C-alpha cells in the first residue's frame, strides 16, 4: 500500500473520519466494560453522569481541566516547533515548588503583590526546567525526548527530598507534605460558594494569549516555520536556535503555571501526589486539540471529564478506573490516524 495526497478533502472526509475515530473509542470502551463483566451502556452512562451529571460533578471536571489546560498549552506550543517537551510533569512540580518556597510566609506581602510574584516565580521555574534540555538540543544535538522524560524522575525525587527535609511541615504528622500557603498566596474562588478557583480563569486567559501569540505575532509565525522545516526556516533568515529557546521558555513557563495553580488554587500545599500525571496527559490534550490553543481548552475539558467520570463510575461499577487512560490513549492514536487519512488516501500497489 502507499499513501496518496487528497487534493480536496470534502466535508465527509474532514468530519467523518474524526467522528469514526471517536466512535471507535466509544466502542472499545464498551468492549472493556463487557470484559470487566458490566453492562456497557450502563458504564457509559455512569461515566457521563459522573463527569457532568450534577453541579458537583461539573465543578470537579472544571477543576481537573485547569492544570490540563496549562500542560496542554505547554505541549501544544512546544510540539508546534517540533520541540518534544515530554517534561511538563517536572516543570509543573518546579512551578509548584517555587510557589511553596515563596508563599509559605517568606514574603510578608499583600495578595495583590504576592500572587503576581508567585506566578512569575512559577513561570520562571518551569521555564528554567526546560531551558537545560533545550540548550542541550540546540548546542549539542542531544535528543530532548529522553532528557525531558528522565528529568521527570529526577524532579519527583528532588521534591521528595525537600518534602522530607527543609520543606517538611512540622505539623504534618510525619507525612511528606509542605507547610500550607499563607492566605495572601491563595487564589480566590471565581464565585463565592462555588468550588472553582481563579486558576481556571488564568488558564483560559493563557489559552487566549497563546492563540494570539501563535496567530498574530512574528514569533508565532517563526515557531510554525521552524516546526515545519528547520532548514527552510534557517534559509529564510529565521534565527532557529533563538526561536527554539523562546519556545522552550514559553512552554516550560506554562507548565510551571499549572503547578502554581494547583498549589495556590486547589491544594494549598505541596505533596508528592500533586500531579497524577498532568504533564503526560497534557500531551494527549494537545494532540486531540491538533495543537490549537483554543482547542486545548475544549480537549482538556473532555479529557478531564473522562477521568472524573471514570473515577465516579468505578466506585459504582466493577470496572477499574484505568479504563479512562485506555480510552484516552485509544482516542489519541485513532485521532492522529483519522486526521492523517483526511489528507491522504490509501491506494494499493
Amino acid at each position, binding site marked *: *500500500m*502507499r*499513501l496518496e495526497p487528497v487534493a480536496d478533502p470534502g466535508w465527509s472526509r474532514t468530519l467523518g473520519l474524526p467522528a469514526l475515530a471517536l466512535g471507535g473509542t466509544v466502542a472499545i470502551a464498551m468492549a*472493556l466494560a463487557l*470484559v*470487566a*463483566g458490566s453492562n456497557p451502556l450502563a458504564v457509559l452512562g455512569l461515566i457521563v453522569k459522573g463527569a457532568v451529571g450534577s453541579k458537583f460533578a461539573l465543578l470537579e471536571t472544571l477543576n481537573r481541566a485547569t492544570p490540563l489546560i496549562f500542560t496542554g498549552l505547554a505541549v501544544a506550543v512546544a510540539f508546534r516547533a517540533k520541540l*518534544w517537551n*515530554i517534561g511538563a510533569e517536572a516543570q509543573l512540580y518546579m512551578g509548584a515548588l517555587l510557589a511553596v518556597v515563596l508563599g509559605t510566609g517568606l514574603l510578608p506581602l499583600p495578595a495583590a503583590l504576592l500572587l503576581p510574584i508567585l506566578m512569575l516565580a512559577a513561570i520562571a521555574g518551569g521555564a528554567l526546567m526546560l531551558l537545560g534540555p533545550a540548550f*542541550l538540543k540546540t548546542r*549539542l*544535538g*542531544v*535528543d530532548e*525526548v*529522553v*532528557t525531558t*522524560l*528522565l*528529568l521527570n*524522575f*529526577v524532579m519527583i*525525587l*528532588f521534591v*521528595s*527530598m525537600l518534602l*522530607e*527535609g527543609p520543606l517538611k511541615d512540622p505539623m504534618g504528622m510525619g507525612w511528606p507534605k509542605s507547610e500550607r500557603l499563607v492566605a495572601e498566596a491563595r487564589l480566590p474562588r471565581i464565585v463565592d460558594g462555588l468550588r472553582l478557583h481563579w486558576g481556571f480563569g488564568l488558564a483560559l486567559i493563557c489559552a487566549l494569549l497563546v492563540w494570539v501569540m501563535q496567530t498574530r505575532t512574528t514569533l508565532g509565525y517563526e515557531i510554525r516555520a521552524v516546526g515545519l522545516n528547520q532548514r527552510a526556516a534557517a534559509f529564510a533568515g529565521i534565527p532557529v536556535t533563538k526561536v527554539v529557546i523562546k519556545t522552550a521558555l514559553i512552554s516550560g513557563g506554562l507548565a510551571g503555571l499549572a503547578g502554581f495553580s494547583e498549589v495556590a488554587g486547589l491544594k494549598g500545599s505541596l505533596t508528592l501526589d500533586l500531579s497524577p500525571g498532568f504533564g*503526560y496527559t497534557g*500531551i*494527549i490534550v494537545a*494532540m486531540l486539540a491538533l495543537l490549537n490553543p483554543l482547542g486545548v481548552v475544549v480537549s482538556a475539558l473532555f479529557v478531564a471529564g473522562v477521568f472524573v467520570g471514570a473515577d465516579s463510575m468505578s466506585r459504582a461499577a*466493577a470496572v*477499574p478506573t*484505568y*479504563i*479512562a*487512560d*485506555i480510552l*484516552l*490513549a*485509544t482516542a*489519541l*492514536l485513532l485521532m*492522529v*490516524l483519522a486526521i*492523517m487519512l483526511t489528507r491522504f488516501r490509501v491506494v494499493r500497489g
Partner: protein
Amino acid sequence: MEILDILISASFWAAAVRIASPLIFATLGELICERAGVLNLGIEGIMVVGAFAGWMAVYSGADLWVGVGVAMAAGMLFGLLHAILSVPFGLSQHVVGLGITLLATASTYFAYRVALPQVTNPPRIEAFKELPIPVLSDIPIVGQALFAQTPLTYLAFVTAAVVAFVLYRTPLGLAVRAVGENPHSVEAQGLSVTALRMGAVVVGSGLMGVGGAFLTMSAFNSFFFEMVNGRGWICIALVVFGAWKPGKALLGALLFAAFDAMQIRLQQTSLGADIPYQIFLMMPYLLSILALVVMSRRAEVPAALMVPFNRGER
C-alpha cells in the same frame, strides 16, 4: 575506603549483571527498531506489558519458559500496533510511541485489576532460580558475577550475540541496517521497506517484553505498579550511548548497572547516613542524561531514523 570494599565484593558484581539483564533485552529491542529507522517510544509501556503478561501466565500455572514466550508475544502485539501506525501510515513516531506506552500501561493496570480485583498484596510466583555453571562459577568474583545467574541472564547475553551476528553477518541484517540508512536503496533492490521496518519493530518489541518479564520472573518475583520505573527511557539513552551497536550497548548496560548497584550499596554506608537517599536514586537518571551528552557528538545516528517512507515519494 567503602567504595573499594564494594568493588572487590563478588555480590556487587553479581548484582550489577543482574540489574543489567532486563536493560540488555530492552536496549537490544530498541536498537533493532532504531537501526531499521523507527524510534520506539512504546518501550516503557511494552516493558510493563511484558512484566505483567509473563508473571500472570506463570501465576495461572504456565511453565516459566512459556511465561517468557507469553511476555514476548504480548510485547510483539503492541509492537505490531506501533508498526502499523508508524510504518505504512507514517504517523509521527513520537506521538505513536507515547500513545503506545500509555495504552500498554493502562491496559496492563486494567487487566491486573480485572484479573485480581480484591488483591492488595500481589501474589508471588516461583521464579527462575540461579543456575550456576559448573567449574566456571567457581572462578572468584568473575565466576559469581557471570556464571551463577538465572537462565534469563544467560539468555540476555546470548541474545546480544545473536543480534550482533544477525545485524552484521547476514543478508537480513544488512537489509535492516540499510532500511534505517537509505530506504530508497533497499526498495531499489526489490525488498519491501514496509515489511523490513515492521518486522524490526515487532521483533524489537518482543525483546522489550522479555526485558519487562525479567523484572517479574527473575528479580522481584511479583508484579506491582510503577515497577518498570523509567527503565525503558533509560534503554533509549543506552542505545545512543552504545552508538547503535549491540556490543557497545551491552557494555553500556553493564556499566550503567554497575553504577546502579553501587548507589544501592552506598546508601548502606556512612555516606548514606549523611546524604538523603533520593540523591542516590537520582543517579541512574542523571547518569543517563550525562551519557547522552557525552556521546551525542560522536554518535552515528541511523540516517533515516524517524523519517517515514512512502513509496513513490522522493
